[in-house]
Structure formats: C-alpha cells, structure tokens
C-alpha cells in the first residue's frame, strides 16, 4: 500500500514539475518548415522547462480557420501565425492577448526594423509579434536578358522600360513571356504604396475603420490599364493567385517575376540560370512611397495561464535574438527582424555573397515612412483580396483596345463589391 502511494505521488510530482507546453500553429511549408523546426529546437534546448511544439496547420487561410474553430471549442493553441490580411480580424476578435501586454510598457522595440513595427502597431502599441515579414521585389533571368540582347545589369526601373524590355524578349524568342506576378492583388497594393497612393479611406484603415476603397481612382485605373496592355502584348503571363508564378520563372517561360522576397532562397537554389533582383518598377510623376510589408505575424490567444504567457514571451524574445533572426533570414529570405541582425549579416559578408537577399531590404529601407506606405488594414481583407484577384484575372482576358475604359469598369465593379464587404464588416463590429 505504501509503495503504491509513493508511486502515485511520484507520478503526480512529474506533473507538478512538468514542462510548460506551448502549442504553436503555423503555415510555413516546404523549406521554411525546416527553418521553423530549427528555431524551435534551439529554443527548447536553451529552456528545459518549456517545450514549444510547432505544428504545420496548412495554408494561412486553413490555419486561421482552424484557430477559430479551436477557439470556439475552447481548445485554442497558444500562438498562431496569421497572415497580414488577417490583421483587422484578429484585432476585433476578442480572442487575443496583445503582445504589449506580455512585454510590458517599458520594453524597447527600437531594434525592430521600422516598417515592420509600423505595419503591426495600432495606436502606438504592438499587438502581434513580427516573425516572417517580406516585401515584393522584381526577380529577373540574366541569361534570357543576354539572349535577347539586353544588358543583364540594367533591369527595368520603370513601367515603360519593363514593357519595352518585355516586348524585346518575347519578340526575340528568348522567352515565352516577359513577366509574371505572384499574389497579384498584393502586387496591386504594393504598386499603390510604392507610389505614395492611398488604397482605402481613413488612411488605409489605420485612423479609423476603412469604409471605402480608392483603388478605382485614376491611379489604380492607370496601373490596371498598363497590365492589360502588357497582357495583350504577351509580355505579362498570369501565374495564379499565390506562388504558382514561380514555376513559370524557374522553367524560363518568363524572364521576370514580381514575387515576395521570401521566395529568394528557394528560387536561387532551384534556378539553373543566373538570377538578379531589383526594386519594383515605378511610373514617374508620383510621390515616393515604399514597398509594403507582407507575410505574417504571431498572435497570442487568450485563455491561458500566466505561466504560459511568461513562457511565450521568453520564446518571442528568443525570436528576436540576433543569431536566431539572422539564421531565419538566411534560410528563407524573409527580413531579419532587428537592426542588430542586419549589422551581423553585413559584418559576416553575407550580403556581399548573397546580393539578392539584400534587395528587398534596401528597397524598404530606402523608401519613405509615410502613412500611404504603412500598409492597408481592412476588415474582411481576405474576401477583398479575392475580389481584386478576380478583377485582375478578368482584366487580363480583355481583348479590346480601350484599356483605361475597361480597367475603370472592372475596378468600379470590384470597388462596389469591396465597399459592400467593408460595410458589412462595420455592421458587425461598429465603426
């Protein structure tokens, strides 16, 4: 009997001194999965009392759906990775514990890269933890440029140059198409912010909930009209709504690609041609803006113990460690989160050896930090991205010659649907 009691007490004590388990749901697939696991292993090794368990839960949309379902079942994870378009949804969800509550008011966020902080800050407070931030850049195939008689060290800087070079490439037969985009709706947003144009009212939804979009104004119409022109000249080849365009670039069907910098590592390793990267092309005559942050952040869910929140905060601080975030950048291409990490990478000579990893970074640090470039915050942003993707898909199927008229028609239609969506959002959450 005594022996049994001792045994039982021993077993129970294991629970008393047991590890704090933190469940972390993320959407990092492919080579990024390995990078995430490496970070987790490192953290767990340094912190024997805490065990972070990372689980790949599908795409960003699937991860968010799962998180919601689990929250409603009372079974939510501690940390969930949500894409930037889920920002407003998470803020209004009443299901999160803001990061500034974990860090305390005195924490100095100064080392975190400015534009990243800007995107996820609401009223001067940080609500979610920056993790994988990226921006869009222009990739190009130097071999195809040479074959078409173009200077491989002079990629296009403006829309007109891109169109001209694209036409030369297609006509010379060096490639089937000039350019393709990944995440077209995101590229449309990027184009607005690069040219210092607001995408929606209330300063892109940052000083108040956005109720109206501006992308069907003169600027947006001009951009879409340009893309229609490119598509008709066979310069632009459509590449799906997410990463599928990478295939067309890797198989040398297109000479150029506008895609997230998070694909830099994987594209470089798979490309069997000489690749270059540069800033996004611009149209002269507009204010200087900036490329905008994309990617995702880590949100902490409500309903856990103080002990667990302390463990989570330890994990977040680990993510900001110079070596950790520098390594994360090296294996994926996402921005290193802190200025210290950038300095370390520079000192090591990493950027000198891997210039393509530096491009997105230089682009975002050389842009301005004006409200138009801070990033768009919309309710139902996922649905709105869909509407814009659909509009772009419709636009490039146009075979007529009235580019601006057709672009205006399509964008007006998309804006109407978007404004209805925004209205419905304020119906639920109020203004």
């Amino acid at each position: 009997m005594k022996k049994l009691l001792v045994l039982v007490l021993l077993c129970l004590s294991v629970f008393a001194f047991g590890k704090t388990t933190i469940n972390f749901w993320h959407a990092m697939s492919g080579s990024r999965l390995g990078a995430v696991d490496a970070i987790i292993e490192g953290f767990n090794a340094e912190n024997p009392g805490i065990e972070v368990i990372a689980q790949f839960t599908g795409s960003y949309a699937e991860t968010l759906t799962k998180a919601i379902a689990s929250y409603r079942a009372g079974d939510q994870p501690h940390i969930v990775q949500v894409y930037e378009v889920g920002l407003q949804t998470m803020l209004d969800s009443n299901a999160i514990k803001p990061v500034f509550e974990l860090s305390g008011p005195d924490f100095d966020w100064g080392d975190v890269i400015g534009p990243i902080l800007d995107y996820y800050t609401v009223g001067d407070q940080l609500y979610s933890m920056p993790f994988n931030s990226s921006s869009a850049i222009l990739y190009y195939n130097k071999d195809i440029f040479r074959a078409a008689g173009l200077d491989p060290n002079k990629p296009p800087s403006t829309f007109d140059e891109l169109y001209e070079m694209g036409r030369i490439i297609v006509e010379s037969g060096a490639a089937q198409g000039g350019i393709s985009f990944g995440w077209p709706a995101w590229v449309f947003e990027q184009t607005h912010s690069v040219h210092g144009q607001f995408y929606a009212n209330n300063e892109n939804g940052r000083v108040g909930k956005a109720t109206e979009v501006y992308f069907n104004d003169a600027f947006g119409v001009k951009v879409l009209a340009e893309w229609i022109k490119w598509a008709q000249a066979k310069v632009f080849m459509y590449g799906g709504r997410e990463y599928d365009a990478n295939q067309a670039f890797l198989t040398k069907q297109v000479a150029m690609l506008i895609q997230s910098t998070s694909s830099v590592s994987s594209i470089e390793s798979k490309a069997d041609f000489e690749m270059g990267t540069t800033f996004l092309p611009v149209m002269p005559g507009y204010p200087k803006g900036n490329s905008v942050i994309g990617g995702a952040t880590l949100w902490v869910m409500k309903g856990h113990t103080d002990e667990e929140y302390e463990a989570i905060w330890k994990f977040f601080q680990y993510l900001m460690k110079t070596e950790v975030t520098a390594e994360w950048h090296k294996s994926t291409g996402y921005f290193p989160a802190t200025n210290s990490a950038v300095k370390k990478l520079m000192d090591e000579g990493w950027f000198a050896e891997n210039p393509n990893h530096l491009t997105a970074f230089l682009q975002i640090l050389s842009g301005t930090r004006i409200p138009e470039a801070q990033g768009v915050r919309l309710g139902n942003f996922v649905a709105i991205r869909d509407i814009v993707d659909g509009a772009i898909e419709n636009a490039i199927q146009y075979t007529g010659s009235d580019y601006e008229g057709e672009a205006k028609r399509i964008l007006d239609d998309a804006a109407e649907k978007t404004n209805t969506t925004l209205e419905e959002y304020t119906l639920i959450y109020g203004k």
Partner: protein
Amino acid sequence: MHSRFPNRFLPYLLLLPSVVVVIIFLIVPTIQSLYLSFFRVSPFGDRLIFVGWYNFSKLFKSSDYIDSLVITLVFAVFVVLIGLTLGMLLSVLLNQKLKGLQVYRTLFIWTYAISPAVAGTIWALMFSPSSGPITFLLKAIFGANVNWMMDGKVALVAVIIAASWKMLGYNIIFFLSGLQTIPQELMEASAIDGASSLRRFFKITVPLLSPTTFFLLIMNTLYAFFQVFGLIDIMTKGGPGDATQVLVYKLYRDGFINLDTGFASAQSIVLFIFVAILTVVQFRFAEQKVFYG
C-alpha cells in the same frame, strides 16, 4: 416475411449508433445552418446580428452568385452527359469476351477508387501550362497555346474532363452489373432475326439498362453538385476569375476563407433546396421513361 428479434429493444439498440451519427453530423449542422443563415456572424463567432432575409436577398441579387449558378449548371449537365454516355459505351465494350478483360476493366474502374485530391493533381499536371503533356500535345498538333490559368473556358473544360473521368469508374461498375442482367437469349434471338448491333443496342440494351441509367442520373447529378469540391480546390480554386466557381466551392470560399458564416449558411440552404427540387423533378419525369422489366 418478418424476422423476430429475441429482444424487443435490440433492433433499436443496433440502429442507435447510425442514428446518433446522422443526427450529430447531418441533422444538427443542417438546423444550425438554417439558423445561422438569418444572421450576420463575426469570424470568431462571438457576435451574431439578426438580419432576417438579407443573406438570401443578397444571394439572388449578387451577380457572382448568378454566375456561379450558371457555371454549376453547365458543369453538371456536361459531367452527367459525358459520364452516362461514355460510361454506357465503355461498359458495353467491356462486356464482351476479350482476352485480358479483367485488366481493361480494372484500368477503367480504378478512377473511382482514387481520392479527389489525387485526381485533381493528376489533371492539374496534365494541363499544366509550363510542363503538362496535354498542353504540349495541343501545341504540337494544333499549334494552340492553351493556358487554363489565363482562360476561364479552358479551365472549365479541364475540370469537366477531370470530374467526368473520376466518375467513370463508378458509372462503369453499375452499367456492367446492369448489362449482366440482360438475358443472353434476347440478344441472340434478335441477332438471329437480323438486327444489327446498333439496333440491338438501342432497342434492347438501352431500355433494359434504363433503371441503372436512371439511378446513375441521380447519382451523377448529386456528384456534380456536391462532391466535386476537392477536385476544384486542387485544380483551379474556383478561378481563373471565378470561371470554375461552382456553387459548392463558392460556399466554401465564403464560409471558410472569408469567414462569412451567415452568408455561406444561406448558400448551403439554397443549394440543398435546389438539388432537392432537381431530384424530385428527375423522379417525376425521368422515371416515367424507365422500363422496369
């Protein structure tokens, strides 16, 4: 002929698990759907605002929904037609005494055994604009540059082909068993009387197969409306430009990606009613043509 159970309660007890499963996974969600379709629901489900018929009226006023309805009808008509005619033809061919018949039959039937995800991946690869065999062949033979990611019509054709192909196995199994109930004497007698094989097919085989055909008509319709979600998700995700956005996919989009539960619930109710009406109509009219010998 009645069976007697030793215990009065045993039959109910044996039925209980199935009934419980049906209630939990079918009845309760349906009632919940009906309830939620009258509300506007927040993504996290914490706020419900009663909006009455708003979701339903928005559906019918929405050009996206009408487009989706048209696409679904076109899709369903083609999938059913191709499935039934090709299925019947192939079954007749597979009902002969050939060497290696089992091999041929297996090759046609296995399409039903694979999952929609696998089927979708196979066809996505076949039609892939950069590396697909069909794209290559079409270019080589017709010089046509077919890119389903840029052309909605091509995408619709691609998913119709994939969906019909997947259901072929199912249709062939049933047609084959239906064919085997046709008495050999009938066929032999008519052959002796001088009927050509075409005549025999249309005058004997088709009428005697009609119960099977009718059954498969219903099943293929249900398949085309409800069970193609996986295929579309893998192949086109409803695109390009919503060209392959069938009703069940739009429902998924609105409910799980856009997190608009109320609106998606309204769509599922409407879809349910629509297919129920369609089935009743089929029973009314098509069943009259069925020859139950």
